[in-house]
């Protein structure tokens, strides 16, 4: 920490007021904590109406006050409190609102570190007993019960760029490329879902482009689309409104993905009348109406059907909203006729019907949207196309190669779903998908020829699965060399779901070490110097063995026995719990054995993606339930996806803040 921060921190007004007591939580603050917790608790009693949950809540509150707070004060606060924030970690705010979703990861990671005896660090004077460690871990896992039963809000959601483009395609048959100029978006947990003037303007432009493609100009004969949707123009002199209303109803039912209300039709009819008043023909007025539909919130957002009772705090999704939520999740487009019919019939919310639809949608090629939207993001493959590689060193990284790497991961992900395999297959697997381009990375160019991707049985046990997949190894490398640290972090965070704190400021970088002494060392020997520094050692003693275990794969995923310095690669390592391994395949076996962690992590990530929001307190209870169910069913992928879609937060929503 630089002296500057210390100085500023002392003079920062916000901190001056709360730093009166030497101990962080006792006294005034402790009272505040209790009040906050009480507040959450009372809400739970009011609408949770679940005695089991209420009891768990009371228990969590008690153990928080009696166990967690004293533990943190005794063992943690001196380094991770208000004054010191070692590794950027502090309990200062977490102690004020322990149930807050913002600190969920902090609590979980602290429990993990305490359990694994990573924390407090070895040099700390006070060390908790094994018993204390166990109690802390259990209590932290109970913090989720501070949250009332709550599906979270399903804020009316704007269609993403891809969803919008696909929906335009399904509605009008236009090329989805029509929306290419919309900005790309951030998806997944913390999905932005905002609408800016810029975006609105682009939507209007795109609406004009769509119109240009599907309707005729004034006076010209109608296009097939117009014939189908607008019908024959009413005879001259007759009232045009009934025909226009019929067309509006047809159009809005499809474009709004639910039946329009009469009031919504009235608005469209007003647009129709506006154009008529300005002398436009029947068809011309319907064209303006179509444009109005395309810039309406009912088209741009997934909106509920009908009114929300003002007093209802939690409501089930109506069948239309559920159909959209499901269809946009698995297909990234609007519900097809079968889903729409089930919504019309009011059958979709039936769990058996819903599960059957999940299986149907997953069996359709459009379900690749789940990989493009979620899988690619989870595995980091979405970054591969734009990643820089040093051209002289890695001329192999052509666009074709990057595409093949992406497709390998996609086909692999899809095979797990289509064949309903266990998600352990992600780690431990003896097949992959290659073409001749990608086969050169595997050294299989003699057997795999031709540009098409096909399933290939792998005989080398070190290959197979996401840990050894070239696209993923390449994404987690530097432009010119491997990064054991990046790879280690990736496995911990993205595969096992464990948070790795960012390197502290002033981190001593690899290259800082005297050039002459490191020049002859292998990457491993150099990186191991990290672990001689206690500041770094805590994290690196887990990260590095994983990263080194994968050092046989170069920066673009080719097998090698020597690294750049010419030294032999030693993949052997040991992970906490005395788990030793001597090769990538043995490392994979150790990671695959952590099926519960993998399952929980994937469930969490996919649930957050499905809900389009970060997970909050009650969600953790849901994840517990889902994880248990999925595990009982052999960790199968379709079970995981079906469980998420039929879960309470996916099928319900909170209407109040």
């Amino acid at each position: 920490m630089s002296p500057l921060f210390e100085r500023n921190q002392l003079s920062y007004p916000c901190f001056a007021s709360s730093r009166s007591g030497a101990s962080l939580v006792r006294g005034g603050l402790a009272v505040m904590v209790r009040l906050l917790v009480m507040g959450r608790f009372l809400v739970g009693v009011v609408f949770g109406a679940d005695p089991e949950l209420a009891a768990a809540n009371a228990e969590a509150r008690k153990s928080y006050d009696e166990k967690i707070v004293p533990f943190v004060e005794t063992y943690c606060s001196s380094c991770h409190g208000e004054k010191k924030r070692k590794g950027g970690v502090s309990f200062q705010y977490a102690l004020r609102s322990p149930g807050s979703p913002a600190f969920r990861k902090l609590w979980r990671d602290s429990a993990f570190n305490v359990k694994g005896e990573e924390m407090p660090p070895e040099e700390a004077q006070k060390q908790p007993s094994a018993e204390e460690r166990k109690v802390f871990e259990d209590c932290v896992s109970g913090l989720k019960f501070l949250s009332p039963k709550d599906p979270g809000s399903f804020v009316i959601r704007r269609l993403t760029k891809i969803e919008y483009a696909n929906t335009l395609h399904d509605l009008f048959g236009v090329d989805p490329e029509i929306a290419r100029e919309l900005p790309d978006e951030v998806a997944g947990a913390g999905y932005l879902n905002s609408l800016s003037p810029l975006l609105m303007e682009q939507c209007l432009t795109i609406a004009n482009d769509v119109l240009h493609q599907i309707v005729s100009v004034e006076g010209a004969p109608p296009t097939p689309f117009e014939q189908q949707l607008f019908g024959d123009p009413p005879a001259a002199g007759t009232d045009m409104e009934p025909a226009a209303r019929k067309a509006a109803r047809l159009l809005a039912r499809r474009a709004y993905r639910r039946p329009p209300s009469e009031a919504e039709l009235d608005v469209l009819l007003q647009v129709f009348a506006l154009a008529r008043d300005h002398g436009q023909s029947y068809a011309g007025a319907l064209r303006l109406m179509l444009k109005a539909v395309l810039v309406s919130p009912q088209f741009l957002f997934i909106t509920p059907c009908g009114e929300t009772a003002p007093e209802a705090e939690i409501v089930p999704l109506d069948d239309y909203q559920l159909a959209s939520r499901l269809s946009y999740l698995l297909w990234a487009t609007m519900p097809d006729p079968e889903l729409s019919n089930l919504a019309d019939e009011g059958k979709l919310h039936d769990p058996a019907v819903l599960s059957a639809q999940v299986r149907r949608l997953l069996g359709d090629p459009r379900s690749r949207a789940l990989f493009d939207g979620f899988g690619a993001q989870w595995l980091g493959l979405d970054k591969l196309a734009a990643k820089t590689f040093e051209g002289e060193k890695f001329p192999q990284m052509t666009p074709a190669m990057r595409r093949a790497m992406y497709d390998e991961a996609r086909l692999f992900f899809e095979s797990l779903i289509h064949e309903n395999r266990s998600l352990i297959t992600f780690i431990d697997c003896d097949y992959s998908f290659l073409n001749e381009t990608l086969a050169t990375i595997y050294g299989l160019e003699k057997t795999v020829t031709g540009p098409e991707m096909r399933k290939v049985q792998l005989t080398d046990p070190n290959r197979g699965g996401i840990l050894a997949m070239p696209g993923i190894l390449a994404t987690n490398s530097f432009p010119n060399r491997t990064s054991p640290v990046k790879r280690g972090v990736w496995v911990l965070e993205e595969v096992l779901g464990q948070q790795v704190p960012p390197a502290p400021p002033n981190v001593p970088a690899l290259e800082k070490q005297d050039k002459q002494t490191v020049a002859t060392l292998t990457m491993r020997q150099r990186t191991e110097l990290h672990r001689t520094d206690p500041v770094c050692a805590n994290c690196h003693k887990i990260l590095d063995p994983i990263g080194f275990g994968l050092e046989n794969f170069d920066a673009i995923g080719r097998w090698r026995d020597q690294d750049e310095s010419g030294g032999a690669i030693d993949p052997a390592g040991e992970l906490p719990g005395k788990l030793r391994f001597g090769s990538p395949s043995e490392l994979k076996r150790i990671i695959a054995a952590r099926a519960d962690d993998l399952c929980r992590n994937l469930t969490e990530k996919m649930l957050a993606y499905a809900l389009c929001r970060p997970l909050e307190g009650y969600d953790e209870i849901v994840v517990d339930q889902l994880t248990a169910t999925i595990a009982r069913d052999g960790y199968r992928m379709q079970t995981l996806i079906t469980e998420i879609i039929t879960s309470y937060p996916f099928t319900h929503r909170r209407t109040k803040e």
Partner: protein
Amino acid sequence: MRNNCLINRRTYLRGLGATLALPLLETMGWAESPSQKTFKPPVRLGFMFMPHGVIMDQFWPTNPESFLTAPPPCLESLRGVLDQCLMMKGITGVNPAPFNGAPHALELSTWLTATLPNANRRNTVDIAISADQIAANYVGALTALPSLELATMPQTHKENQEGLHEAYYSHCSFSSPTQALPAETNPRTALKRLFQKQDVKPETRTTADPLERSMLDLVLGGARDLRGKLGQTDRHKLDEYLGSVRSLERRIAAIELRQAEAAKAAAGVTSTKRSGSDSVPIEVIIPEGDRRSDYMRVMCDLTVLAFQTDTTRVSTYIGSTPNGVSYPELGFSDEHHSQTHHNNEPVKVDKISKITSFNISQFAYMIKRMQELREGDGTLLDNCIMMWGSGLEDGNTHTRANLPFIIAGRGGGSINTGRYVASSSGNQGDLLSTLLTCAGIPLDRPIGIATKQLTEIMTNA
């Protein structure tokens, strides 16, 4: 950068017709103060960002005396226009605590807000309206586009250090505490948006539909009905929609007015405010390929053109975001961030210095273009306040005791340029508040952590 962003064809703004040929010279914006006899061009405000800080001894001038004659290496590209620039050392950034572990989310998100994200709602966007948007709220109604937001990289970074929302890593403009404004990354789209100009497929070019605004009015009415039927959380979301449609309506109205004025001018009704010596609008050429310098240059051109034509008076350009950017044309492929933790190792220091010089040279290019353009009695630059800056001083240690920034342009006579103030004292909020004041934007409250105006910036100090 994807290649398809850059349409492989030259794009001309020349001969586009009256919309462009006269823009700046008249119409509504210029009639703000009827009492004012002599025409005074408006002040434009522009921001350009680079992440990760600078190499201090390559960036800060040695002393005020040598500032103009012997600038530090990173400012070499500004030689020749340094008399139009102002530098100050001693302006501190917002204290990062309690977000010490997220320096790069903060360096961008606090840059124009001078405010920390809300620590209790860190997993959602909750910060403050940014200085550029405060300005846009005041002067935006006078131009076809309230403000222009540009960026070089897609704003899709995903990182949540300290539990902070990922939008903080890629956005610096916030139209409200809870809404991050996306920036345009495609120069062709930006060009089209600025000037309603489609450079491809002329057959699809549509003229403004005269009924579009009335149609939007009706849709807006329907959206209000819908709002009444929604739950509380949904209403906030729909408010964003309502605001966006209203802004779109305003924009169409401004364009219509422009077109009417242009038609009048074409019919020979000349404006009294028009200055015959004003330069003709510059030409923007959208480059082929994906060289970063070409790309940044065209974004700078767009800013110049937007200002020159008075299409907007506020622009923000995130020249580079804090993540994943590399500069192959400088002869190395390392990512910017990876080199910032250099620990004074010469090779890395040199790379950071080169990256900084590169970014500043893009800014210098923009400034020089502005200086070449005549406007009223002076140059376009005379009527601009352009700020280039970084959100950290030292990327190695994540500190920001002295925020690095360069102000260029005299702000219509409000800014005293050609100087280096070696020991100033103030903070980021003070700086932003002062710049807005110089641009003639009245403030009803200080920006972020501001406590005062930095009078040494101003000419009358």
